[in-house]
């Protein structure tokens, strides 16, 4: 901790006491000023995102280790993911993030109808993302590429038989594609779970925005949710190249 952090200006807090006291219904009694409450909220949100970094970090590390150990299996298995759906989903999520950013701006500017429209658009794009994601999951289910007892490696030991331009893997390396698919499902699954939670929160925000809660300068929930939603984007921005783009130029 450097000493600059240690400066809480007493004069400032007193000034806050004089003019900033209880003017919004959302102002909670134990905060001296609304400003203090807003900062505490956003700092808390960042600390929460810190835990999320470490949570996903564990899986990213597992990915790093196994990708280096079983690179051939990872490359081949990765090529069985649809790069077009993956890219489209990335674009969708970035667009959704853009809408969320505009929503935050609309809330700060107290533009209620724009805020509502942008929140709905964010939700819609999120749902479309999940729709594509589940179609991908379903395809893997049909191909028996979901790790577990029904996992089938024949596509990797005999790619020519499936009309795929890949070098066939020896059987033991082919088994390691299961590790890739496990990490794929674990990471995208956790990401999807975060999105589902986010969509639930979005519905709640839409309901509150519709009620006019965010039309009077109180925007903390929208801002903090925005941070969460952008964090989900961030995770996907790493997942996309790591899972979909390992080696898209086989047999060169």
């Amino acid at each position, binding site marked *: 901790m450097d000493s600059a*952090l240690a400066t809480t200006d007493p004069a400032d807090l007193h000034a806050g006491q004089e003019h900033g006291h209880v003017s919004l219904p959302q102002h909670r009694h134990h905060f001296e000023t609304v400003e203090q409450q807003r900062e505490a909220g956003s700092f808390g949100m960042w600390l929460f995102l810190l*835990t999320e970094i470490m*949570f996903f970090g*564990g899986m990213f590390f597992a990915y790093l280790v196994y990708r280096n150990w079983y690179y051939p299996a990872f490359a081949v298995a990765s090529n069985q993911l649809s790069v077009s759906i993956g890219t489209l989903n990335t674009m969708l999520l970035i667009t959704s993030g853009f809408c969320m950013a505009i929503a935050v701006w609309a809330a700060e500017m107290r533009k209620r109808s724009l805020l509502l429209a942008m929140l709905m658009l964010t939700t819609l794009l999120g749902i479309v993302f999940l729709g594509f994601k589940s179609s991908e999951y379903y395809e893997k289910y049909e191909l028996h590429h979901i790790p577990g007892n029904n996992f089938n490696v024949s596509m990797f030991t005999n790619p020519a038989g499936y009309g795929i331009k890949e070098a066939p893997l020896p059987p033991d390396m082919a088994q390691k594609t*299961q590790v890739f698919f*496990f990490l794929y499902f674990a990471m995208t699954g956790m990401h999807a779970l975060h999105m589902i939670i986010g969509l639930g929160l979005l519905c709640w925000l839409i309901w509150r925005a519709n009620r006019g809660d965010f039309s009077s300068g109180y925007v903390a929930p929208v801002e903090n949710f925005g941070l969460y939603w952008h964090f989900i984007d961030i995770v996907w921005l790493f997942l996309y190249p790591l899972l979909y783009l390992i080696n898209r130029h086989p047999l060169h």
Partner: protein
Amino acid sequence: MSTAVGNTIVSLPDQSTAQLPKRHYINNEYGLLSWLLTEDHKRIALLYLFSVTFFFFIGGAFAGLIRLELLTPQPDLVAADTYNKFFTMHGLIMIFLFLVPSIPGVMGNFLIPLMLGAKDLAFPKLNLLSWYVYMAGGTLTLAALVLGGVDTGWTFTAPLSTHYLNTHVITAAMAIFITGFSSILTGINFIVTIHRMRCPGMTWFRMPLFLWAHYAASLLMVLGTPVLAVTLVLVALERLFGIGVFDPAKGGDPLLFQHLFWFYSHPAVYIMILPGMGVISEVVSTFSRKRIFGYTAVAFSSVAIALFGFFVWEHHMFIMGVSSYSALVFSLLTMLVAVPSAIKIFNWAFTLQKGSITFETPMLYCFGFMGLFTIGGLTGVFLGSLGMDVHLTETYFVVAHFHFVMVGGGLMAFLAGIHFWWPKMTGRMYPETISKLAAVTTFIGFNLTFLPQFVLGYLGLPRRYAAYPPEFQVLNVLSTAGATVLGFGYMLPMLYLAWSLKYGAIAGSNPWQATGLEWQIASPPPTENFTEIPIMDHEVYDYEWLANKTKNEVTTVG
């Protein structure tokens, strides 16, 4: 001090006229719902107090069963696999449901806003939520127990836990996952509160060391716990779907599990001990009537322990087949953690030097802490050295070592803190003589239980077995006898503290003549803590300031 009479600093109001304040946080509202839906940090602290005590005695019961089984060399009380379930439940409950939430949940919740001069923690609802999440995790742990138990050891060692055992691993893993969320929420709440809710004049270097310690521990909770969470999720998924990120037969690496698990679980040791060190700083200063020697060093050593704590986890894995070069690096780094811990011990010792020491119960527990934690810490240096570790790891030496740190350190500090702040929490004093007896009993019982285990371990007795060769029986009997004494020592406080709720002497606002802001308000405190926001216009642990204040305030005592 002027108020010190004989060999005590306790100054209580005149018992014939004294009474508790009319309105305080306990009698402010009545009814079960006023407790279950409360957002008052002090009430939530009491909720935590009841629940951690409950889980402590369940975990303690398992400890008793373990010691009873080990009374004889044969597995005659229970079969070996039942014994496995005993030590697993003992570990899970004591670590995740008692040690991790005990001091932060009870004392941290109660005292952080009071010491900062704030009305509440930054997020009161989140605080209540963290208690409910804790209870959900606790209930699920008990469910795993009732359904038939789990026998992985508290370490969930993969692939044992994922492929070979047929017990309720997923239930237990989810229980711990959920409990982890509780500690994350508590950590976030503390960090934000300490950054944002300090009263005017309360700079970082005027904060009591209790707050520094909790700040450091909260950092560990926030940064470490999610890694445990993701590890447990992977274990549960692996078990559920029969795949192999951690199973070598399927291409996984069991050491990856160990790395991720200990990346949390080593810092978790500091989550358990750092708040305890915070308690000790407060107690030592109060009962030697001196500012903590080297305040800044002690404050920064908390942060240093938190930081170094993340660089040493591999010393749990030296014999598991990790790279010996890497083990060398981690062994050296492990020695580094000894430095900030020693800084604390030395500074407390120098605080005592030439202080006006008095021997009230919290101080007795505190001395217990300093002795036992030092032994625990030094044996940790043995275990951190590569060569010694090969011989000693996975023996009773390790068991004794971490019990010295966790029980001799963490639990002693918890009891010191409970006694120290009991007058503040309840407005009444605990009975002094019997509590001194309890402190001494605990100390004797503890040493009798765990000193023989150092010898057992050095002689090569491995941990986690229900049976052992007959030549080890004498030491095991000693240990079991000690555990009986220890159990008695732990029952006592529960009984007399409950008694004191009704019959204890009225404590008044500052029975110890301590300097913290929490002692300058009524005991028990009013719901809103401070009627007007205090201004910290003096240095921390400034006993002269207190003496002047008391002198000028003679007429307004009460």
